[in-house]
Protein backbone atom coordinates (compact mmCIF):
# COMPACT_ATOMS: atom_id res chain seq x y z
CA UNK A 1 0.00 0.00 0.00
CA UNK A 2 1.33 3.42 -0.98
CA UNK A 3 1.10 6.56 1.15
CA UNK A 4 0.60 10.07 -0.23
CA UNK A 5 0.85 13.65 0.92
CA UNK A 6 -2.59 15.14 0.33
CA UNK A 7 -2.46 18.45 2.16
CA UNK A 8 0.00 21.10 3.33
CA UNK A 9 -0.42 24.19 5.49
CA UNK A 10 2.07 26.78 6.68
CA UNK A 11 2.16 29.74 9.00
CA UNK A 12 5.30 31.11 7.34
CA UNK A 13 8.60 31.35 9.21
CA UNK A 14 9.39 34.85 10.48
CA UNK A 15 11.75 36.47 12.95
CA UNK A 16 9.09 37.14 15.60
CA UNK A 17 5.37 36.43 15.90
CA UNK A 18 4.06 38.44 18.87
CA UNK A 19 0.63 38.77 17.24
CA UNK A 20 -0.27 35.12 17.78
CA UNK A 21 0.14 32.42 20.40
CA UNK A 22 1.60 29.05 19.42
CA UNK A 23 -1.96 27.73 19.49
CA UNK A 24 -3.24 30.36 17.08
CA UNK A 25 -0.24 29.86 14.80
CA UNK A 26 -0.73 26.09 14.63
CA UNK A 27 -4.48 26.54 14.11
CA UNK A 28 -3.72 28.71 11.06
CA UNK A 29 -1.42 26.07 9.55
CA UNK A 30 -3.89 23.27 10.35
CA UNK A 31 -6.83 25.08 8.80
CA UNK A 32 -4.83 25.66 5.61
CA UNK A 33 -3.68 22.03 5.46
CA UNK A 34 -7.17 20.61 6.00
CA UNK A 35 -8.61 22.92 3.38
CA UNK A 36 -5.83 21.91 0.99
CA UNK A 37 -6.49 18.23 1.65
CA UNK A 38 -10.26 18.68 1.38
CA UNK A 39 -10.82 17.11 4.78
CA UNK A 40 -12.06 18.04 8.23
CA UNK A 41 -10.24 17.13 11.43
CA UNK A 42 -12.93 14.56 12.20
CA UNK A 43 -11.68 12.61 9.16
CA UNK A 44 -8.17 12.29 10.64
CA UNK A 45 -7.35 8.99 12.34
CA UNK A 46 -3.96 9.75 13.89
CA UNK A 47 -1.66 12.68 14.68
CA UNK A 48 2.10 13.06 15.16
CA UNK A 49 3.48 16.28 16.60
CA UNK A 50 7.14 17.25 16.93
CA UNK A 51 8.29 19.28 19.90
CA UNK A 52 10.98 19.67 22.52
CA UNK A 53 9.87 20.61 26.05
CA UNK A 54 12.81 22.93 26.76
CA UNK A 55 12.02 24.90 23.62
CA UNK A 56 8.37 25.23 24.60
CA UNK A 57 9.09 26.08 28.23
CA UNK A 58 6.44 23.55 29.22
CA UNK A 59 6.99 20.01 30.42
CA UNK A 60 4.88 17.20 28.96
CA UNK A 61 4.12 19.48 26.01
CA UNK A 62 2.18 16.74 24.23
CA UNK A 63 -0.81 17.69 26.39
CA UNK A 64 -0.86 21.08 24.66
CA UNK A 65 -1.00 19.59 21.16
CA UNK A 66 -4.56 18.36 20.42
CA UNK A 67 -6.83 21.42 20.65
CA UNK A 68 -5.49 23.54 17.81
CA UNK A 69 -5.23 20.51 15.49
CA UNK A 70 -8.77 19.30 16.07
CA UNK A 71 -7.19 16.21 17.66
CA UNK A 72 -9.08 16.04 20.94
CA UNK A 73 -9.74 12.44 22.05
CA UNK A 74 -7.81 11.01 19.10
CA UNK A 75 -4.46 9.20 18.97
CA UNK A 76 -1.68 11.80 19.24
CA UNK A 77 2.04 11.06 19.46
CA UNK A 78 4.39 13.87 20.36
CA UNK A 79 7.99 13.06 19.66
CA UNK A 80 11.20 15.02 19.78
CA UNK A 81 12.45 14.31 16.28
CA UNK A 82 13.41 15.87 12.96
CA UNK A 83 10.85 16.12 10.15
CA UNK A 84 11.75 12.93 8.31
CA UNK A 85 11.72 10.85 11.48
CA UNK A 86 8.34 12.36 12.36
CA UNK A 87 6.94 11.62 8.92
CA UNK A 88 8.32 8.07 9.11
CA UNK A 89 6.44 7.55 12.38
CA UNK A 90 3.16 8.67 10.82
CA UNK A 91 3.90 6.82 7.56
CA UNK A 92 4.38 3.58 9.51
CA UNK A 93 1.00 4.04 11.20
CA UNK A 94 -0.76 4.44 7.85
CA UNK A 95 1.11 1.39 6.53
CA UNK A 96 -0.41 -0.78 9.25
CA UNK A 97 -3.75 -0.39 7.50
CA UNK A 98 -5.44 0.66 10.74
CA UNK A 99 -5.32 4.37 9.90
CA UNK A 100 -6.38 6.07 6.69
CA UNK A 101 -5.49 9.72 7.22
CA UNK A 102 -2.64 11.06 9.38
CA UNK A 103 -1.50 14.53 10.31
CA UNK A 104 2.05 15.70 11.08
CA UNK A 105 2.58 18.98 12.93
CA UNK A 106 5.58 21.02 14.02
CA UNK A 107 6.06 24.62 15.04
CA UNK A 108 8.60 27.04 16.42
CA UNK A 109 8.41 29.86 18.92
CA UNK A 110 12.17 30.18 19.27
CA UNK A 111 11.72 33.95 19.62
CA UNK A 112 10.13 33.33 23.03
CA UNK A 113 13.31 31.77 24.45
CA UNK A 114 15.42 34.39 26.18
CA UNK A 115 18.64 32.36 26.38
CA UNK A 116 18.66 29.91 23.51
CA UNK A 117 22.23 28.86 24.27
CA UNK A 118 21.04 27.61 27.67
CA UNK A 119 18.42 25.43 26.02
CA UNK A 120 21.14 24.01 23.76
CA UNK A 121 23.32 23.48 26.83
CA UNK A 122 20.61 21.32 28.42
CA UNK A 123 21.16 18.90 25.52
CA UNK A 124 24.87 18.52 26.31
CA UNK A 125 26.10 15.77 28.61
CA UNK A 126 25.66 17.17 32.15
CA UNK A 127 28.72 15.43 33.57
CA UNK A 128 31.32 15.55 30.80
CA UNK A 129 30.49 18.47 28.55
CA UNK A 130 28.17 21.04 30.15
CA UNK A 131 30.58 21.86 33.01
CA UNK A 132 33.08 23.20 30.44
CA UNK A 133 30.71 26.18 30.19
CA UNK A 134 31.28 27.07 26.54
CA UNK A 135 28.49 28.45 24.35
CA UNK A 136 27.10 25.32 22.62
CA UNK A 137 27.74 26.73 19.15
CA UNK A 138 31.22 25.35 19.78
CA UNK A 139 29.81 21.93 18.82
CA UNK A 140 29.12 23.22 15.30
CA UNK A 141 32.50 24.98 15.26
CA UNK A 142 34.30 21.72 16.08
CA UNK A 143 32.38 19.71 13.48
CA UNK A 144 32.81 22.38 10.81
CA UNK A 145 36.55 22.55 11.47
CA UNK A 146 36.87 18.78 11.08
CA UNK A 147 34.68 18.77 7.97
CA UNK A 148 36.61 21.55 6.23
CA UNK A 149 39.98 20.13 7.18
CA UNK A 150 39.22 16.58 6.05
CA UNK A 151 38.22 17.85 2.57
CA UNK A 152 40.69 20.64 2.18
CA UNK A 153 37.81 23.15 2.02
CA UNK A 154 37.94 26.64 3.43
CA UNK A 155 35.42 29.10 4.84
CA UNK A 156 34.81 30.68 1.45
CA UNK A 157 33.45 27.32 0.25
CA UNK A 158 30.74 27.28 2.91
CA UNK A 159 30.08 31.00 2.36
CA UNK A 160 28.85 30.02 -1.12
CA UNK A 161 26.05 28.02 0.54
CA UNK A 162 24.93 31.13 2.44
CA UNK A 163 25.03 33.29 -0.70
CA UNK A 164 23.05 30.75 -2.75
CA UNK A 165 20.36 30.13 -0.15
CA UNK A 166 19.84 33.75 0.87
CA UNK A 167 19.54 34.67 -2.81
CA UNK A 168 17.07 31.86 -3.50
CA UNK A 169 14.96 33.03 -0.55
CA UNK A 170 14.97 36.57 -1.88
CA UNK A 171 13.79 35.36 -5.28
CA UNK A 172 11.11 33.17 -3.74
CA UNK A 173 9.87 36.19 -1.81
CA UNK A 174 8.27 34.59 1.27
CA UNK A 175 11.02 35.17 3.79
CA UNK A 176 12.55 38.30 5.29
CA UNK A 177 15.93 36.56 5.49
CA UNK A 178 16.45 36.67 1.73
CA UNK A 179 19.21 38.92 0.41
CA UNK A 180 21.67 39.30 -2.42
CA UNK A 181 24.88 38.63 -0.62
CA UNK A 182 28.22 37.54 -1.99
CA UNK A 183 30.32 34.78 -0.43
CA UNK A 184 33.00 37.37 0.28
CA UNK A 185 30.50 39.45 2.25
CA UNK A 186 29.60 36.40 4.30
CA UNK A 187 33.22 36.23 5.41
CA UNK A 188 32.89 39.75 6.85
CA UNK A 189 30.39 38.56 9.46
CA UNK A 190 31.64 38.01 12.99
CA UNK A 191 33.16 34.78 14.20
CA UNK A 192 30.95 32.79 16.56
CA UNK A 193 33.02 29.68 17.14
CA UNK A 194 35.77 29.64 14.56
CA UNK A 195 35.50 28.66 11.74
CA UNK A 196 31.72 29.21 12.20
CA UNK A 197 30.59 32.78 11.53
CA UNK A 198 27.33 34.53 12.33
CA UNK A 199 26.05 34.30 8.75
CA UNK A 200 26.87 30.57 8.60
CA UNK A 201 24.04 30.06 11.11
CA UNK A 202 20.40 29.94 9.97
CA UNK A 203 18.68 32.73 11.94
CA UNK A 204 16.04 31.61 14.46
CA UNK A 205 12.45 31.97 13.30
CA UNK A 206 8.87 31.29 14.44
CA UNK A 207 6.27 29.44 12.39
CA UNK A 208 4.00 26.40 12.14
CA UNK A 209 3.54 23.70 9.54
CA UNK A 210 1.02 20.90 9.10
CA UNK A 211 1.23 18.03 6.61
CA UNK A 212 -1.66 15.65 5.86
CA UNK A 213 -0.93 12.16 4.54
CA UNK A 214 -3.29 9.38 3.51
CA UNK A 215 -3.46 5.88 2.15
CA UNK A 216 -3.81 5.17 -1.57
CA UNK A 217 -7.58 4.86 -1.54
CA UNK A 218 -8.14 8.29 0.03
CA UNK A 219 -5.43 9.96 -2.06
CA UNK A 220 -6.79 8.62 -5.35
CA UNK A 221 -10.33 9.57 -4.38
CA UNK A 222 -9.07 13.10 -3.96
CA UNK A 223 -7.63 12.91 -7.44
CA UNK A 224 -5.26 15.83 -7.96
CA UNK A 225 -1.65 16.32 -6.92
CA UNK A 226 -0.70 12.75 -6.20
CA UNK A 227 2.53 13.10 -4.25
CA UNK A 228 3.77 9.69 -3.16
CA UNK A 229 6.12 9.07 -0.24
CA UNK A 230 8.33 6.78 -2.30
CA UNK A 231 11.02 6.17 0.28
CA UNK A 232 11.86 7.11 3.84
CA UNK A 233 14.64 6.37 6.31
CA UNK A 234 16.07 7.78 9.51
CA UNK A 235 18.94 7.12 11.89
CA UNK A 236 20.62 8.39 15.02
CA UNK A 237 24.36 8.35 15.61
CA UNK A 238 25.76 8.98 19.08
CA UNK A 239 25.41 11.85 21.56
CA UNK A 240 29.16 11.66 22.14
CA UNK A 241 30.43 14.64 20.22
CA UNK A 242 33.95 13.21 20.55
CA UNK A 243 32.90 10.28 18.35
CA UNK A 244 31.54 12.33 15.48
CA UNK A 245 33.48 11.91 12.29
CA UNK A 246 32.26 15.03 10.51
CA UNK A 247 30.55 13.02 7.77
CA UNK A 248 26.87 13.06 8.89
CA UNK A 249 26.84 9.28 9.28
CA UNK A 250 23.13 9.35 10.27
CA UNK A 251 22.23 10.66 6.83
CA UNK A 252 24.29 8.04 4.99
CA UNK A 253 22.29 5.30 6.67
CA UNK A 254 18.97 7.11 6.24
CA UNK A 255 19.68 7.75 2.55
CA UNK A 256 20.60 4.13 1.91
CA UNK A 257 17.26 3.01 3.34
CA UNK A 258 15.21 5.65 1.54
CA UNK A 259 16.94 5.09 -1.82
CA UNK A 260 16.49 1.35 -1.61
CA UNK A 261 12.77 1.69 -0.87
CA UNK A 262 12.31 4.18 -3.68
CA UNK A 263 14.38 2.12 -6.12
CA UNK A 264 16.96 4.87 -6.57
CA UNK A 265 20.35 3.84 -7.94
CA UNK A 266 21.82 7.22 -8.81
CA UNK A 267 20.20 10.01 -6.78
CA UNK A 268 21.34 12.87 -9.00
CA UNK A 269 19.94 11.20 -12.11
CA UNK A 270 16.85 9.65 -10.54
CA UNK A 271 15.77 12.68 -8.50
CA UNK A 272 15.12 16.23 -9.75
CA UNK A 273 15.98 18.47 -6.80
CA UNK A 274 16.52 18.46 -3.05
CA UNK A 275 15.62 20.20 0.19
CA UNK A 276 18.64 19.61 2.41
CA UNK A 277 19.19 20.75 5.97
CA UNK A 278 21.50 23.76 6.06
CA UNK A 279 20.99 24.95 9.64
CA UNK A 280 24.72 25.70 9.47
CA UNK A 281 26.26 26.43 6.08
CA UNK A 282 28.73 23.52 6.26
CA UNK A 283 25.87 21.11 7.03
CA UNK A 284 24.53 21.55 3.49
CA UNK A 285 27.83 20.43 1.94
CA UNK A 286 28.30 17.70 4.55
CA UNK A 287 24.77 16.43 3.91
CA UNK A 288 25.16 16.63 0.13
CA UNK A 289 28.16 14.32 0.37
CA UNK A 290 26.49 11.99 2.89
CA UNK A 291 23.55 11.67 0.51
CA UNK A 292 25.95 10.58 -2.22
CA UNK A 293 24.97 13.42 -4.57
CA UNK A 294 28.67 13.96 -5.21
CA UNK A 295 31.74 12.11 -3.97
CA UNK A 296 33.65 12.84 -0.78
CA UNK A 297 35.39 16.18 -1.15
CA UNK A 298 33.63 17.23 -4.35
CA UNK A 299 30.70 19.25 -3.01
CA UNK A 300 32.45 22.62 -2.68
CA UNK A 301 33.66 22.62 -6.27
CA UNK A 302 30.26 21.49 -7.58
CA UNK A 303 28.57 24.27 -5.59
CA UNK A 304 30.94 26.91 -6.99
CA UNK A 305 30.29 25.67 -10.50
CA UNK A 306 26.57 26.20 -10.00
CA UNK A 307 25.62 22.51 -9.92
CA UNK A 308 23.22 23.13 -6.99
CA UNK A 309 21.89 26.50 -8.19
CA UNK A 310 18.30 27.16 -9.23
CA UNK A 311 19.28 26.72 -12.86
CA UNK A 312 21.86 24.05 -12.10
CA UNK A 313 21.85 20.36 -12.78
CA UNK A 314 20.58 19.45 -9.32
CA UNK A 315 19.02 22.39 -7.46
CA UNK A 316 19.44 22.26 -3.67
CA UNK A 317 17.19 24.39 -1.45
CA UNK A 318 15.47 26.31 -4.25
CA UNK A 319 13.33 28.28 -1.78
CA UNK A 320 16.36 29.15 0.37
CA UNK A 321 16.69 26.32 2.90
CA UNK A 322 16.92 27.15 6.59
CA UNK A 323 19.50 29.87 5.99
CA UNK A 324 17.06 31.65 3.71
CA UNK A 325 13.82 30.83 5.56
CA UNK A 326 15.00 30.75 9.14
CA UNK A 327 15.77 28.00 11.62
CA UNK A 328 12.46 26.75 12.99
CA UNK A 329 14.01 23.85 14.91
CA UNK A 330 11.98 20.65 14.60
CA UNK A 331 9.73 22.37 12.04
CA UNK A 332 12.64 22.74 9.59
CA UNK A 333 11.93 19.35 8.04
CA UNK A 334 8.24 20.11 7.63
CA UNK A 335 8.99 23.43 5.96
CA UNK A 336 11.25 21.45 3.61
CA UNK A 337 8.47 18.94 2.85
CA UNK A 338 6.05 21.85 2.32
CA UNK A 339 8.39 23.55 -0.16
CA UNK A 340 9.15 20.29 -1.97
CA UNK A 341 5.41 19.68 -2.42
CA UNK A 342 5.02 23.22 -3.80
CA UNK A 343 7.70 22.42 -6.39
CA UNK A 344 6.15 19.08 -7.33
CA UNK A 345 2.75 20.73 -7.75
CA UNK A 346 4.20 23.57 -9.81
CA UNK A 347 3.27 26.15 -7.16
CA UNK A 348 6.74 27.49 -6.32
CA UNK A 349 6.38 30.85 -8.08
CA UNK A 350 9.64 32.61 -8.92
CA UNK A 351 11.78 29.63 -8.01
CA UNK A 352 9.65 27.01 -9.78
CA UNK A 353 11.80 24.33 -11.40
CA UNK A 354 10.83 22.88 -14.74
CA UNK A 355 8.26 20.11 -14.10
CA UNK A 356 10.09 18.26 -11.35
CA UNK A 357 8.78 14.76 -10.73
CA UNK A 358 10.74 13.72 -7.69
CA UNK A 359 12.24 15.37 -4.64
CA UNK A 360 14.81 14.44 -2.02
CA UNK A 361 14.36 15.84 1.49
CA UNK A 362 17.09 15.49 4.09
CA UNK A 363 16.43 16.64 7.63
CA UNK A 364 18.60 17.07 10.74
CA UNK A 365 17.44 17.35 14.34
CA UNK A 366 19.69 20.35 14.95
CA UNK A 367 22.36 21.29 17.47
CA UNK A 368 23.82 19.29 19.18
CA UNK A 369 22.39 16.16 17.55
CA UNK A 370 23.61 13.51 15.15
CA UNK A 371 20.15 12.43 13.98
CA UNK A 372 18.32 12.89 10.77
CA UNK A 373 16.33 11.35 8.00
CA UNK A 374 15.66 11.21 4.29
CA UNK A 375 12.38 11.32 2.35
CA UNK A 376 11.86 10.70 -1.35
CA UNK A 377 8.70 12.21 -2.84
CA UNK A 378 7.44 11.37 -6.30
CA UNK A 379 4.66 12.99 -8.30
CA UNK A 380 2.33 10.57 -9.99
CA UNK A 381 0.20 11.39 -13.00
Amino acid at each position, binding site marked *: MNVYIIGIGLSPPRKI*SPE*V*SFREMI*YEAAEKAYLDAGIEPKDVDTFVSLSEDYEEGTAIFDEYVPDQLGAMLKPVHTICADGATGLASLFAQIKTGHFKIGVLEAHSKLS*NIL*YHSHVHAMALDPVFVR*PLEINPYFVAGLEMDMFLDSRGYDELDTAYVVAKNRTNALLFGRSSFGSFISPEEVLLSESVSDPLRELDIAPNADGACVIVIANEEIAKERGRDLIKIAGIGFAEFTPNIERWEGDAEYLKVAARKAYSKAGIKNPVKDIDFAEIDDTFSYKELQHIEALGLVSFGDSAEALKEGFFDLGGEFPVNPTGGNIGNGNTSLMNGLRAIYDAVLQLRGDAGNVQLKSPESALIATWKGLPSASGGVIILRREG
Partner: protein
Amino acid sequence: MKFEGISLGLKEFEKEIKVEWKGKLEYEWDCGIALSKFMEGLKHGKILARKCYACGRIMIPPRMFCERCFRPTDEWIELGDEGEILTFSVSFVNWDASRRKKPEIPAVIRLLGTSENMGILHKLGEVGDTLEEVLKNVKIGMKVKAVWKKEKEREGAITDILYFKPIKRRK
Protein backbone atom coordinates in the same frame (compact mmCIF):
# COMPACT_ATOMS: atom_id res chain seq x y z
CA MET B 1 2.89 6.91 62.62
CA LYS B 2 6.66 7.23 62.97
CA PHE B 3 9.06 5.92 60.32
CA GLU B 4 12.34 4.45 61.44
CA GLY B 5 15.65 5.24 59.78
CA ILE B 6 17.81 8.28 59.07
CA SER B 7 16.20 11.21 57.39
CA LEU B 8 18.30 12.72 54.64
CA GLY B 9 18.58 16.48 54.40
CA LEU B 10 20.60 18.87 52.23
CA LYS B 11 23.62 18.40 54.54
CA GLU B 12 23.90 14.72 53.70
CA PHE B 13 23.72 15.39 49.97
CA GLU B 14 26.35 18.13 50.13
CA LYS B 15 28.94 15.49 50.99
CA GLU B 16 28.46 13.87 47.59
CA ILE B 17 30.43 14.85 44.51
CA LYS B 18 28.07 16.81 42.36
CA VAL B 19 27.86 18.69 39.12
CA GLU B 20 26.04 21.96 39.31
CA TRP B 21 24.49 23.80 36.40
CA LYS B 22 22.23 26.78 36.70
CA GLY B 23 20.54 26.92 33.35
CA LYS B 24 18.79 30.15 32.47
CA LEU B 25 15.57 28.66 31.19
CA GLU B 26 13.54 31.80 30.73
CA TYR B 27 10.76 32.49 28.29
CA GLU B 28 8.62 35.37 27.14
CA TRP B 29 5.59 33.56 25.77
CA ASP B 30 3.52 35.30 23.13
CA CYS B 31 0.02 35.18 24.55
CA GLY B 32 -1.51 35.94 21.17
CA ILE B 33 -4.90 37.41 20.40
CA ALA B 34 -7.14 35.57 22.85
CA LEU B 35 -5.04 35.43 26.00
CA SER B 36 -3.63 38.95 25.56
CA LYS B 37 -7.14 40.39 25.56
CA PHE B 38 -8.08 38.16 28.53
CA MET B 39 -5.06 39.43 30.50
CA GLU B 40 -5.79 43.04 29.55
CA GLY B 41 -9.34 42.49 30.79
CA LEU B 42 -8.11 41.26 34.18
CA LYS B 43 -6.11 44.45 34.56
CA HIS B 44 -9.37 46.35 34.32
CA GLY B 45 -11.27 44.00 36.59
CA LYS B 46 -13.07 42.24 33.74
CA ILE B 47 -13.26 38.55 32.92
CA LEU B 48 -13.55 38.05 29.16
CA ALA B 49 -14.62 34.90 27.36
CA ARG B 50 -15.13 33.89 23.71
CA LYS B 51 -18.32 32.42 22.30
CA CYS B 52 -18.56 29.88 19.50
CA TYR B 53 -21.79 30.35 17.55
CA ALA B 54 -21.68 26.77 16.24
CA CYS B 55 -21.79 24.92 19.55
CA GLY B 56 -22.90 27.90 21.64
CA ARG B 57 -20.19 27.37 24.24
CA ILE B 58 -18.75 30.38 26.04
CA MET B 59 -15.11 29.61 26.64
CA ILE B 60 -12.72 30.68 29.35
CA PRO B 61 -9.78 31.08 29.15
CA PRO B 62 -10.80 32.45 25.75
CA ARG B 63 -9.71 30.88 22.47
CA MET B 64 -9.76 32.33 18.97
CA PHE B 65 -10.81 28.89 17.73
CA CYS B 66 -13.24 26.31 19.05
CA GLU B 67 -11.40 23.05 19.69
CA ARG B 68 -14.61 21.05 19.29
CA CYS B 69 -16.07 22.65 16.16
CA PHE B 70 -12.63 23.50 14.71
CA ARG B 71 -13.71 26.90 13.53
CA PRO B 72 -12.92 30.46 14.63
CA THR B 73 -14.83 31.66 17.69
CA ASP B 74 -17.18 34.59 17.12
CA GLU B 75 -17.77 36.97 19.99
CA TRP B 76 -16.23 38.46 23.13
CA ILE B 77 -18.43 38.08 26.20
CA GLU B 78 -17.80 39.83 29.51
CA LEU B 79 -18.59 37.56 32.41
CA GLY B 80 -19.41 38.50 35.96
CA ASP B 81 -16.89 37.61 38.66
CA GLU B 82 -19.24 35.30 40.51
CA GLY B 83 -19.58 31.59 40.04
CA GLU B 84 -19.95 28.19 41.63
CA ILE B 85 -17.38 25.65 42.72
CA LEU B 86 -17.06 22.64 40.41
CA THR B 87 -14.27 20.97 42.38
CA PHE B 88 -11.66 21.88 45.02
CA SER B 89 -8.75 20.39 46.91
CA VAL B 90 -6.98 21.30 50.14
CA SER B 91 -3.22 21.31 49.68
CA PHE B 92 -0.95 20.86 52.70
CA VAL B 93 2.44 20.48 51.00
CA ASN B 94 4.96 23.14 50.05
CA TRP B 95 7.09 23.04 46.89
CA ASP B 96 9.84 21.17 48.74
CA ALA B 97 7.26 18.66 50.04
CA SER B 98 7.43 20.03 53.59
CA ARG B 99 4.10 20.44 55.44
CA ARG B 100 2.11 23.68 55.38
CA LYS B 101 0.26 24.82 58.45
CA LYS B 102 -2.29 26.83 56.50
CA PRO B 103 -3.50 25.04 53.40
CA GLU B 104 -3.84 26.38 49.85
CA ILE B 105 -7.22 25.64 48.30
CA PRO B 106 -7.12 25.30 44.51
CA ALA B 107 -10.54 25.17 42.90
CA VAL B 108 -12.27 25.13 39.56
CA ILE B 109 -14.99 27.75 39.46
CA ARG B 110 -17.69 27.92 36.84
CA LEU B 111 -18.37 31.60 36.32
CA LEU B 112 -22.02 32.48 35.89
CA GLY B 113 -22.80 32.88 32.21
CA THR B 114 -20.28 30.33 30.93
CA SER B 115 -21.22 26.93 29.60
CA GLU B 116 -21.50 23.82 31.67
CA ASN B 117 -18.17 22.45 32.90
CA MET B 118 -16.38 25.58 31.67
CA GLY B 119 -14.47 26.53 34.78
CA ILE B 120 -11.65 28.88 35.65
CA LEU B 121 -8.84 27.44 37.76
CA HIS B 122 -8.01 29.60 40.76
CA LYS B 123 -7.80 29.57 44.56
CA LEU B 124 -10.31 29.92 47.39
CA GLY B 125 -9.80 32.21 50.38
CA GLU B 126 -11.52 33.20 53.61
CA VAL B 127 -12.73 29.63 54.09
CA GLY B 128 -10.71 28.57 57.13
CA ASP B 129 -7.19 27.58 58.19
CA THR B 130 -7.58 23.90 58.99
CA LEU B 131 -8.84 20.94 57.00
CA GLU B 132 -11.88 20.68 59.25
CA GLU B 133 -12.75 24.34 58.81
CA VAL B 134 -12.30 24.25 55.05
CA LEU B 135 -14.37 21.11 54.62
CA LYS B 136 -17.08 22.62 56.79
CA ASN B 137 -17.12 25.91 54.88
CA VAL B 138 -16.63 24.73 51.28
CA LYS B 139 -19.02 22.57 49.28
CA ILE B 140 -19.13 21.69 45.60
CA GLY B 141 -21.80 23.84 43.99
CA MET B 142 -21.26 26.67 46.47
CA LYS B 143 -21.46 30.26 45.15
CA VAL B 144 -18.24 32.29 45.27
CA LYS B 145 -17.02 35.72 44.17
CA ALA B 146 -13.62 37.02 43.04
CA VAL B 147 -11.52 39.11 45.39
CA TRP B 148 -9.42 41.43 43.22
CA LYS B 149 -6.13 43.16 43.81
CA LYS B 150 -6.41 46.92 44.17
CA GLU B 151 -6.75 48.47 40.73
CA LYS B 152 -3.35 50.19 40.92
CA GLU B 153 -1.60 46.92 41.76
CA ARG B 154 -3.09 44.92 38.88
CA GLU B 155 -0.68 44.05 36.09
CA GLY B 156 -2.68 42.01 33.61
CA ALA B 157 -2.06 38.59 35.15
CA ILE B 158 -4.15 35.75 36.50
CA THR B 159 -2.97 36.80 39.97
CA ASP B 160 -4.88 40.11 39.58
CA ILE B 161 -7.62 38.01 41.16
CA LEU B 162 -6.32 37.15 44.62
CA TYR B 163 -8.79 34.36 45.26
CA PHE B 164 -12.50 33.56 45.28
CA LYS B 165 -14.47 33.77 48.52
CA PRO B 166 -17.92 32.50 49.48
CA ILE B 167 -20.87 34.76 48.81
CA LYS B 168 -22.63 35.18 52.12
CA ARG B 169 -26.36 34.86 51.89
CA ARG B 170 -28.25 37.69 53.50
CA LYS B 171 -30.56 36.51 56.19
